[in-house]
């Protein structure tokens, strides 16, 4: 697989799986405004995944749907941080959201400067929407930053946030988050967790029920 397709798939998988996790707050967020916010953020992330899969699918001679739903669990390449099921744990949800958006900003800045005009153009389009995700994440970080549960969650998750980025971009993120850029603690993109296994079961269940059907 080309380097471009590999990279597109990693990012698309991150966005799809995080979008899925965010959508689990629909209907059960701590207040209505957050129910609306997380539903919208989830929709955006899945939209970004769709566009990224479409670009990758053209290179690979397949379709976005096949890439999103027809791969076996071990073929996904998302980072571990997006896999955790955090619905019912608001502190960790916000910690992940804040860390993810910070990492995604670093990633998008690099992609926007890419020589590949298709990738750069799509990254710029995605970034117009991500501006609002970052506002939302920063607003919550400001509100929760002195809360012990939130601080613990950030401590627990920041090493996994570094794994969202290629090695040469991790120092930038560590600096922005004011954490050490310790790569020893990193999990990679190769291993899938138990949380991922149950997510995949649920996410693909309808599509697998009638293989090849046109919906």
């Amino acid at each position: 697989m080309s380097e471009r397709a590999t990279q597109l798939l990693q990012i698309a998988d991150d966005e799809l799986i995080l979008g899925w996790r965010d959508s689990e707050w629909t209907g059960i967020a701590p207040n209505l405004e957050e129910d609306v916010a997380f539903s919208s953020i989830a929709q955006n992330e899945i939209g970004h995944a769709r566009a990224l899969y479409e670009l990758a699918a053209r290179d690979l001679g397949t379709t976005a749907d096949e890439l999103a739903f027809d791969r076996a669990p071990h073929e996904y390449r998302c980072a571990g941080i997006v896999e955790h099921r955090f619905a019912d744990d608001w502190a960790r949800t916000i910690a992940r959201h804040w860390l993810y958006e910070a990492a995604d900003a670093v990633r998008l800045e690099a992609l926007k400067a890419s020589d590949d005009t298709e990738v750069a153009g799509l990254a710029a389009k995605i970034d117009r929407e991500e501006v609002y995700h970052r506002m939302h994440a920063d607003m919550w970080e400001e509100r929760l930053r002195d809360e012990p549960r939130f601080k613990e969650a950030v401590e627990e998750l920041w090493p996994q946030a570094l794994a969202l980025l290629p090695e040469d971009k991790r120092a930038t993120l560590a600096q922005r988050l004011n954490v050490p850029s310790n790569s020893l603690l990193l999990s990679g993109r190769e291993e899938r967790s138990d949380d991922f296994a149950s997510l995949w079961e649920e996410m693909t269940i309808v599509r697998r029920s009638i293989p090849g059907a046109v919906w």
Partner: protein
Amino acid sequence: MVTEAAVWDALAEIPDPEIPVISLVDLGVIRGVDVDAQRVRIEFTPTFLGCPALEVMKGAMEEQIRALGGEPEVDVVLDDSWSTDRITPEGREKLRAAGFAPPAPREAAPPKLIQLQSQAFRCPYCGSTDTKLENIFGPTPCRSLRYCTSCRQPFEQFKTI
């Protein structure tokens, strides 16, 4: 014989599926029309990437072109060519009349929370700028929720992207 002008007129009749007061042409999502005998190629760019109305809009465009006797080819372009600045002046007026505050013009730097929290946004009902941000997000990805303290009316603000 299908003409380019006829194609634009036909596309101007297609309402946005989520905000039907405004057409696809008003929204600025039609990037180009190319007519070659019967073949009509339309370049179209989505507003928000997660927009669920994408397929509906594509289908509506194809239907309009067939009604003109043309063979449609709708290309979805995933580049950075759309911004809310592409909404036409007519489109902005239609939004306002329907109770949606049109997007603020995009500046050189991306929008900031502090701007959204400021009172620079005008209520589409009473015209007051005494409004506050309720939620960055709203019923669709393209909208935020605001509240007008003057006429006590919640309203939807088109996001600037």
